[in-house]
């Protein structure tokens, strides 16, 4: 009896640093990472090559001679029609479109979500359902009604019109996120505030908003991505002076003069995607946390 106890396993279980399970796990992850990183790699590498090198080599080979000429050209020299000032013009235009659209769309959607979670009224769920179905409508099919609508309220061709359009089309998903998030805030908190005499706006500003940072981050990221990447509305509701960056990108990529300058195209593409990319890289952790709060609790 005693002997058995002495010879059997004892103490902490030995751990293998490189168990076959771990190797497989990391192997799979690294392999998948390659798939995800490949396009970014190709874009960066291509943008740093000169045109002759691109014609000769393959897309994956690293540049033999690194040149930033394509970046300079994309930013400040590429031509569309008779304008040769690249993307630079579009950058500030995009910022000017982004900021008010972001503020308005998130404000409206957060109030919607708040009303839908704690202040339900007769019909509120019906409107919400319509909104959600609206999320499935391709924007392009709504182009004409929207044009007519904006014409009727006199906002066609105005920055205000564009902001409105972004607010309207951002509303379904954002409202869903905010609604889910605010629903997950304990109802007792809301009740306590009502007993304390706070009203609709009092509870929103004093209780709910300070608690909603994670979901605001998610909403912000989604909207920055959506608005920054938008081409369709940007091109229709602005004028050449105020074209956003994506319109300039389209113009650069689709204006083929002689040969396709892949390096300039890739540089322009990367420059255009930089703002959302930076925001993603900077706020990745918050994003996941916010998603956890807003999307999961259906």
């Amino acid at each position: 009896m005693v002997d058995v106890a002495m010879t059997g396993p004892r103490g902490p279980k030995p751990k293998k640093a490189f168990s076959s399970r771990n190797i497989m796990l990391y192997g799979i992850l690294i392999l998948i990472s390659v798939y995800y990183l490949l396009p970014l790699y190709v874009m960066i590498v291509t943008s740093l090559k000169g045109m002759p090198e691109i014609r000769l080599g393959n897309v994956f080979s690293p540049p033999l001679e690194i040149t930033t000429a394509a970046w300079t050209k994309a930013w400040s020299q590429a031509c569309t029609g008779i304008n040769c000032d690249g993307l630079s013009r579009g950058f500030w235009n995009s910022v000017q479109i982004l900021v008010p659209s972001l503020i308005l769309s998130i404000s409206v959607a957060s109030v919607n979500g708040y009303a839908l979670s704690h202040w339900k009224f007769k019909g509120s769920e019906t409107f919400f359902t319509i909104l959600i179905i609206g999320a499935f409508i391709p924007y392009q099919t709504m182009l004409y009604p929207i044009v007519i609508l904006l014409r009727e309220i006199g906002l066609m061709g105005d920055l205000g019109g564009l902001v409105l359009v972004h607010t309207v089309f951002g509303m379904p998903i954002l409202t869903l996120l905010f609604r889910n998030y605010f629903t997950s805030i304990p109802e007792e908190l809301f009740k306590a505030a009502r007993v304390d005499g706070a009203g609709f706006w009092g509870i929103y500003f004093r209780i709910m908003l300070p608690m909603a940072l994670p979901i605001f981050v998610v909403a912000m990221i989604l909207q920055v991505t959506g608005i920054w990447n938008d081409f369709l509305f940007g091109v229709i509701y602005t004028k050449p002076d105020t074209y956003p960056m994506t319109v300039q990108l389209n113009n650069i990529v689709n204006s083929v003069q002689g040969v396709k300058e892949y390096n300039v195209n890739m540089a322009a593409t990367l420059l255009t995607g930089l703002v959302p990319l930076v925001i993603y890289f900077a706020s990745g952790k918050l994003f996941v946390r916010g998603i956890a709060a807003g999307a999961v609790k259906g």
Partner: protein
Amino acid sequence: MSNHSVEIRNLDLSFGAVNVLKDLNLDIHEGEFLVLLGSSGCGKSTLLNCIAGLLDVTDGQIFIKGKNVTWAEPSERGIGMVFQSYALYPQMTVEGNLSFGLKNARLPKDEIAKRVARAAEILQIEPLLKRKPGALSGGQRQRVAIGRALVRDVDVFLFDEPLSNLDAKLRADLRVELKRLHDQLKNTMIYVTHDQVEAMTLADRIAIMKGGQVMQLDSPANIYNKPRNKYVAGFIGSPAMNFIEGELAGGVFKAEGFEASLAEYDWATSAPADGPVTLGLRPEHILTEDQVDSGTLRTQVLADLVEPMGADTLVWSNLAGHPFRFRMDGQAVVKAGDMVPVGIDMSRASVFDVASELRL
């Protein structure tokens, strides 16, 4: 004007086709500690929310201090409320939590400071005032939550299972504190719980609820000793009351191999007609060991299972074909398989009509 603090008249509440409260009437005296007790889903929290104005009633009226508040906003009703999950505003300090309602009511600053200081003193949370709720323990949080009701300087306090999220020891401590608080403040308190110990210890009166109706509204002693119906009888008391089905025939209860005279029983009405009845016997009212002889009836039962609990020992057995539990002294020597002599004092029993389940 009556001296009723809270009155509820013919209250109905339904969500769609589901009636949660049905024609409910309740009068709560000034300064009374009333406990709403019942199992989950009985409508006790719903009722409390209606009193608070957090739920819109379907029909009926609610008066607080003689004023019809049926459609008044929660903050206008003169109530303070404490929630099970504390519901402290996480981004505000304790002080902020306490003063939030007062700021909303636009009270002068010095008045707010005075009231916060007083509440903090009463609850002994002065050192915590600058902290945020996240940095507090469960017990501290609940004190703050109580404090938040306290500063409102209201007549009626509403408690929605305030101790349920605390561990057993803290719960017992805070229970005592609540009782002291009530003695000190003498406010009307309405307290929702599913814990009968809390109900029995705290309440001036208990309202036992089931299916959206009040089954019995009475002092703890009466609820325990004279439950108005079988549901209340079974709900109050742990372990639960033993029920034995039988016949009432000429003042004698008869069941399979078991007969007992009810001569000493305190009938709720004058001598009822003969018919099927249920006899209720509380496990702790069964006489054992040297007290067996003082019972109106003596018999022997077979112990199936013995649960020693220290102070006393619970014995599971069988009487007249029904499960039968009784309590013995903790020092009693008894084990499964023993025949145990027991005595029954019929004056402490309860008899219920089988059909209506009402106490006879």
